[in-house]
């Protein structure tokens, strides 16, 4: 567990530093974060992660898709990255297309919130992370880190089916549906088309 602690400690330090800078500049942000770093912060995985994926900005109570980081946030993130020796894209909006077709229903009620000074980070719960990871695992295949993350989360059959139903709303192609079934089968879950909705 030592590696996990070190990784999580480094990420927490980066976020605390970014939050302090944002607070100093009086430019607070509330962000929705997904991906491996989100899982690391929740203590659900222990693999190294070099970046934090943020997909939405909370404005007036609504999560709005982030195509790119707002300039003050990008500048602050760059400064923190330089100071702490982080990757250039340690805070990025890479998977924000997840927002295009909607988040899992009720996600906002299950969020875990962490406050770092001027930075408020909303992290999807384990069951919502299963939705995201299942989508990414099908998309990227069984050799990808997302598939490994999904296995580490040890999802139940019901959780996988809920996740699967959400993923098919994001990719309606027959090819995706076939790969989804294969992915679920590799996790020990056989599903019918009816169950996928």
């Amino acid at each position, binding site marked *: 567990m030592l590696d996990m602690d070190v990784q999580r400690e480094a990420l927490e*330090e980066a976020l*605390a*530093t970014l939050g*302090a*800078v944002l*607070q*100093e500049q009086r430019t607070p942000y509330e962000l929705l974060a997904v991906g491996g770093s989100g899982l690391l912060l929740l203590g659900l995985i222990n693999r190294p992660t070099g970046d934090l994926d943020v997909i939405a900005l909370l404005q007036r109570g609504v999560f709005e898709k982030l195509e790119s980081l707002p300039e003050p946030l990008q500048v602050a993130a760059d*400064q*923190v990255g*330089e*100071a*702490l*020796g982080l990757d250039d894209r340690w805070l990025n909006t890479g998977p924000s297309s997840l927002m295009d077709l909607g988040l899992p229903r009720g996600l906002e009620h299950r969020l875990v919130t962490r406050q770092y*000074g001027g930075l408020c980070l909303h992290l999807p719960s384990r069951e919502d992370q299963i939705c995201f990871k299942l989508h990414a695992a099908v998309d990227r295949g069984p050799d990808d880190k997302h598939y490994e993350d999904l296995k580490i989360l040890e999802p139940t059959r019901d959780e996988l089916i809920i996740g699967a139903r959400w993923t098919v709303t994001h990719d309606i192609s027959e090819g995706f549906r076939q790969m989804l079934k294969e992915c679920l089968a590799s996790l020990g879950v056989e599903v019918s088309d009816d169950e996928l909705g």
Partner: protein
Amino acid sequence: MTSLDSEAAQTLRREIHKFYWGVWSELGVSGWGRTHEDWAIDPEPLIVFSPSVIASEPRLRDEVIDWCSDNWRHVSAVRLRHLLNGNENEETDAWGQFAATVNRSSGAAKWPRATTERKFARTGRSSLRPLSERSMIFLRMRSIFGLSARTEVLRYLLFTGERSTAAMLAAQTNYAKRNVAEACESLVQAGVLQSTQIGNRLYFSLVDGEALSAFLGPSAHIRPDWPVLLRVVNAVFSWTQLEKTSNDRVVTVETHRVFNGIRGDLNALRLEAPDHVVGSQFMPIWRNWSVMLMRSLAAGDLALTQSAAPSTEITESHPR
């Protein structure tokens, strides 16, 4: 102890004020003792970069305004404007007030970006040091050749021994490229400069630098790229203002930002940079390095801070 360490900040401010005192004293500002006799003083960068620092040293500020009020005719308003354009950090409220006060006090100067003058009474203590002194070589050249791009071109080519295009000279002398090109052309016609075509570029160099040097008389040996050096000094000074920031993490980020902002300048000046380690571990390294650098600059002694370099003195930097 916070990562800033207010004792270090105070020491730095004191040393930076001493540095500005020492350099201004070479021009004739009334001060104590002399520390920069072997430094060739370039007035416009000194004037542009001073206000943000000497605002917190009222006696020096008043003596500098006094000197500028008397000697503004030796100063190029064109260079002041170009330097302000290239160093936006210096175009502060302090500059606007400083320029306005000099304009009003002199009764004739028209320094750029002036705002509202402050209440000021002439001290009458500062004067222009004899131009025959080594540190006054740049002002001596102006007295001989005039206050113009021509003089700055000769100065640059003489003290770097390099050949340069008009564009390179414009960047180094803080005059417009057109003025520099005209100056070069007339100096070529006079046989003082020679031009060499390399590719599609025209390079200028002195025909006989030794003769020009002998004609000009004694010169100080330390001739830094003043805007670059003063950017470094003022960046360190701005860092001391972080004392008002209570959050150590913010201070750490800002310290890295300040350092990243000057690392290119340190390289250009051939000054030894601190080991840039990540995170808060950099803080004691930065403190020690900056205090050592500012102490040696304040003393007019660069031997402590120069890295191993081909030259034994700081010279103006430019591409060969």
